[in-house]
């Protein structure tokens, strides 16, 4: 199922674990479990993690650093290479 999850994300037909669970007709908890596995194995990587302006942006009047409530994960190079080989 890990392969199917990676494929779905690569194709762009899903936006959340809930969407994946619906597409694969499985429980969302199970999908979350597998997504965590993929993250840990380096097939998915967290976006936005590297960016922080730390309130030091020159001329920034409203130091509004990226919202931390929106966390996204994309296929890492390892994930993309894997899918492309399929």
């Amino acid at each position, binding site marked *: 199922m890990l392969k199917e999850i990676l494929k779905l994300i690569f194709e762009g037909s899903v936006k959340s674990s809930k969407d994946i669970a619906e597409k694969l007709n499985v429980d969302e*908890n199970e999908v979350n479990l597998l997504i965590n596995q993929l993250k840990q194995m380096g097939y998915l990587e967290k976006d936005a993690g590297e960016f922080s302006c730390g309130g030091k*942006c020159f001329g920034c009047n*409203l*130091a509004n650093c990226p919202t931390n409530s929106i966390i996204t994960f*994309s296929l890492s190079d390892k994930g993309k290479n894997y899918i492309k080989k399929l």
Partner: protein
Amino acid sequence: MHTIALVGNPNSGKTTLFNAITGSTQHVGNWPGVTVEKKEGFFTYNNEKYSLVDLPGTYTLGAFSEDEIVARDFVLKGNPDVVINVIDATNIKRNLYLTIQLLEMGANVVLALNMIDEAKAKEINIDIKRLSERLNVPIVETSASKKLGVDKLLQVTVESIGRKAKPLDISYGKEIDEEIKNIESLLENKNFPYPKRWLAIKILENDKEIVSLVSSDNEIKSYIDNLKEEDKIYELELVDKRYDYINSITKGLVKEPENILTTTDKIDRVLTNYIFGIPIFALIMAIVFQLTFKIGQDFLGGYVESFIGFIASLVENLLINLNAPDLLISFVSEGFFGGVGAVLVFVPLIVVLYFFLAILEDTGYMARAAYVMDSLMRKVGLQGKSFISMIVGFGCNVPGIMSTRTLDNKKDRMIAILINPFMSCGARLPVYMVFIGAFFPNNGGLVLFLIYALGIAMALIMAKIFSKTLFKGEETHFIMELPPYRLPSMNSVFRDMWEKVWGFLKRAGTVIFLVVTVLWVLSMLPAGVEPYSKESLLGRIGSLLAPIFTPAGFGTWQASVSLFAGIAAKEAIVGTLGMLYSPLELTEALRMNFTTLSAISYMVMVLLYTPCAATIATVKRETNSTKWALFMAIYTFLLGYIMSVLVYQVGNLFI
């Protein structure tokens, strides 16, 4: 002394169980060579003393972290007599993944089915007897937090000492099984301190630690290189098979209540609905703007305005009493209080708007907004992730543009940068508010919402145009974590809001003050000219520019000068207008110099035209290109100009 190891997932209650068993006999150190904490304690059972080692909490026994390596090395090389595997009974499938790995290692496992009371409360029924038979390990129900089942666990553990555990032999499918056998026979005469089958599986999983270890042998190294060349690394397949195995083992033995919708699920059914998601988002934002207007402007705004007016007259009277020079009095009352003061009166508005936006973020709704906007964003050639930089842009375009760094596709990033200034930043808010106050006092929230909506619409239109013309390329996709809804933490809401208010105040005291001072000097020169008149240096510059804006309905020198001051900083527009029309009250002066239509046209111009200098500098820095920075400055000006002329000319046909 016999040694017992304690292994389990993080949050499985492992440490609570360790504390319950060992009490005050623990000592803490570090595992050799790593920074991972080593906890060891002792317990006595039937007058015999046993050592209990609490291994780091891990989900797997791979080589992804030091914790995992420490845990698996102790199980394999530390020779524990028994491994107690603590399992969270409310999340049994996830926890069994670690169990399966322990069993594959050949560890002598006893399962502590912990949090069993919580599992029962959640109506999760586990057939422990049959599960124990299928896994071929003893299972004891425990609730470490309530110290239930601990004695029984110790009894079973002690009884299990000396039990010969046979490594679990999962079938990974014909192809992988054959490869495992090949590697096993290759390892036959080698001397590595791990079980051969386990090593073979780890090699096929491309476990870095193990591959590096066995690569010391040239024969194995070249075999592994061949495997890689032939794409025979089965990392995902092996994990998948383990989960399949867990599903087959637990089939019919673990019964969980089906499809119980959580509160988050129920709310999401409405808020992220495919059809209603975007209209609901629009409605929520409209309500936020309406509340901002009502509370920030109508309710609190008056107090701040009166307070600044009071301070201004106090300082002016003081200066007059001190016989200060007329020029200084003029600068303080008209330049400083007329200019900077005109910006400061909007502090309550900033407070209220960002208070509500912080609440939306803290409750988890902003993630849903990005989720529902994703489909729309993809239709215009953007990826949904760009919406994050757009939301940040509502605060300020500088970090908005910087946050596009998170887009790894160059096409997406360039488009997201070029459309970010259409996200109306907080600095432009005072401009809209002063015009709304003058022309739309009864529909403030609606007008404000429409301005922001126009900004988003223009951003999407331009994104579509750019993705069809300047930037073409493949799309990248992502999945989003939708956190459960929660009540906002007032602490973080107020901290977030304060950061923005403080930033606003700092800018008013520095950049805006500087701009207003320069413009004040220009409005006083040449010497002897009537201050703030058309004949002043500033008036002459403005008069030169004014005809350009006549087709848009605001061809006055004051409006022209203020727009150019706005390129330094958007709040300077209000500061400049406040100073140039001083001592008249600003809303009154605007009613005399603008019509309702030209006011709309002016607001459209402010929304869309050239962003502030800091934003342009950020574009240059982020794209590493002066060309793109200039392109941004010019195309936005032209777009703003064309749109405001259109609004004014088309509007005139109907009025």
